[in-house]
């Protein structure tokens, strides 16, 4: 049984295809970096896999279950952590986690216990009873991470999970991801920059404009890029030369 399988996945929004036939098979627990520039179709892919979008073309299965038919069962065994820290911020972390935990059908006592312990580990226990309106983006992201993982899912989809986290939190989350993998979980991780992904991913999938451009380890991709086949997109994602020229121009304008 494949952990995850996409076959010729297409999605069109009002006549334009944002996904033009994605193929992907994951057979063993690993960390997959799903990389592409903004607007490449990363979030759409993840939303289809998480059962949030149910109208698409092609096939998508998670843990051997069809995303269209068994969405509820799939949702119970995956975790989804969206980008841009969207949560009901007038609630306190404890209230929010109780709310989402109940949506996952966890018993109240379990929710209560896990919330406290996880918040403590993220150093948010002192703020557990404070409304999140005053929280920084990093603090909200931590709460979202807890809410997406509390039901101990087998596959975890993360959409730009490190956005807005402070440097220490980034290190902590990376370590958590690594340990989750050792515990036999599959992590599907999207980002628009190569930076962090290259270090923790077992496998990197690059997509652009709804198509997969490359699929392999960081080393093989780098080798390919050197041979020229991937050069442009790779430069854009790792962002070296182009940024140097922009930065140079910026300083020049300041001088003028």
């Amino acid at each position, binding site marked *: 049984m494949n952990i995850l399988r996409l076959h010729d996945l297409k999605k069109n929004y009002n006549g334009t295809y944002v996904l033009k036939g994605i193929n992907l098979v994951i057979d063993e627990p690993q960390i997959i970096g799903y990389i592409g520039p903004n607007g490449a179709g990363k979030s759409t892919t993840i939303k289809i896999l*998480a*059962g*949030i979008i149910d109208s698409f073309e092609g096939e998508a299965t998670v843990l051997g279950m069809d995303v269209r038919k068994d969405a*509820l*069962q799939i*949702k*119970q065994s995956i975790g*989804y952590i*969206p980008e*841009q820290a*969207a*949560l*009901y*911020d*007038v*609630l306190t972390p404890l*209230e929010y986690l*109780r*709310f*989402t935990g*109940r*949506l*996952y*059908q*966890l018993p*109240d*006592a379990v929710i*209560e*216990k896990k919330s*406290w312990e996880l918040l403590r580990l993220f150093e948010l*226990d*002192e*703020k*557990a*009873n*404070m*409304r999140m*309106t*005053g929280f920084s983006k990093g603090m909200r992201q931590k709460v979202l991470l807890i*809410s*997406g993982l509390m039901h101990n899912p087998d596959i975890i989809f993360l959409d730009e999970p490190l956005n807005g986290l402070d440097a220490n939190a980034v290190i902590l989350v990376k370590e958590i991801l690594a340990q989750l993998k050792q515990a036999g979980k599959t992590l599907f991780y999207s980002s628009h920059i190569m930076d962090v992904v290259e270090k923790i991913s077992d496998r990197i999938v690059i997509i652009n404009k709804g198509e997969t451009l490359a699929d392999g380890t960081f080393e093989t991709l780098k080798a390919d890029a050197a041979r020229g086949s991937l050069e442009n997109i790779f430069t854009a994602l790792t962002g070296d030369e182009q940024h140097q020229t922009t930065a140079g121009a910026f300083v020049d304008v300041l001088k003028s």
Partner: protein
Amino acid sequence: MEKWLLKIVHIFDGVFRRQGIDISQLYAIVETKMTLDKRRVYMNWRQSDQSDNKNHLLMVLAVYGFFSVFMGAMIFFLPSFILAMIFLHAYIIFMMAMTLITDFSTVLLDTTDNQIILPKPVNSRTLFMARQVHILLYLFQFTIAMCLIPVVCVGLKYGILTGLAAAITTLLSVLLAVFFTYFLYLLVLRFSSEARAKEAVTWFQIAMTVFFAVGYQIIPRMINMSEFADRFELHWYSYLLPPVWMAVALESVYTLQADFTHLLVIILAVSLPLLLFWILNKYLAPSFTARLSAINTEARDVSKKNQGVVRKSLITRLSSWFTRTNLSKAGFEMVWNITGRDKSFKLQFYPSLGYVFVFIFIFVFNSGRNVGASWNELSSTTKFLWFIYLPMFTVANALLFITYNENFAASWIYRSAPVKKPGELLLGGLIALFIKYFLFIYMAMLAISLYIWGWKILDDFLFGLANDYLCFLILGSIGKQYLPFSRQPNTRQQTGRFLLAILQMMIVAALVGMHYLVIKVPAALYVLLPVVLAACWLLQQNLRNLPWKKIAV
């Protein structure tokens, strides 16, 4: 308009320069702040109308101008000079203070200056003067909108001299309002945090909205109060109120009386506002600024004591009493918590709770005419039906309001979590609204009705409770279904709302008619109550099992 206002300020350029103020910086700051004023979202105004770059401030000023027409009419038609003047000055002080508290609070409580302007090479005199000029211009615009028409009316009816004097006393009243506002803010900031202060502002805004609605009902009626005006006289304690000083001072100008009392009051009316304003500038404003820079340092957490304690709050207990499944508990607690905290929900919904009492007054007492007679024959009527059903109508509005939230994007969680029966979330939320808002008002209505009609209406209220719950379920079941807090605010109402509203009215009318039957034939109660309860149960089941495809996005 701001260009025109700034031209006035330009007159003082020389004075500014002599004080070491950088003119171009001063105008840069003032102009920017005035642009911000125009774009700020004002209350008393539907948010949907404030979406783009229109000049919102101008519209707000127009509303105040419109209200001041009423005051002008009042001055013309109220025969008692002194009473009219008391009303006018009370109105100005009240409205000005309320405006400052509700709308200007963002400016007064603004701490962004500290981050944006202080790091730049602006000297403190320039910044201080820029703030003063901005606040004065803001006040000036509102003063004109509020006072111009009434003052002109005073001049027309009571002579130019009185009109000029009224211009001075209204300005003095504005000074008093400014002082009261600052004082109130200092008090709030002294004893609590910035977040608390902002919450207090929300309550003032709600009070303001209710006041507007009530004022709209009452001020036109005040014009016919000649009976009251004839009997009106000033007691010694009236002199404790600032509007009375202003009115008496004006009376002295109008009647050219100058006895001891009048002179004393004139001195009081002129000197006290000036003295208070001086105190404000000298002592209060600096400590206000100091306090503001203090609150900008991050608010500290206070609730350390609850750590690790699994505490059963009131809400958790309520949700376990009234709901059974995990999902409906989630819906119940979420709706309960967010409705109590979300500012825009509170501003939309809480004023309508205040209206309930106004409407009851209007319906039950036939527009307030001959209150005494209506009161005496009230106990022999069936008007308690208003008391039973009007609250339900009001609270049912909340069913629509809870579908909106500024954080609507957070509703992804409904779709990413394995939610089998979204209807349970809806039902939980509906029950939360019913318990939290409806029952509360219903109890108040019951208390009033028991006082008027006695114990014989108790069974009506019992039947009414079941009937109201049924109506509530019906209103919650027809139309498009949205999960709580999942819609973007300001999205347009879908078409067909009108037909839906008619349908709702008909259903509710039928149910109220049924109650009327119970009043006529008391035995019908024992037949109808079980029927109503059974209908409630059926509708609950129906809502609970609502499939995903019936949930609109």
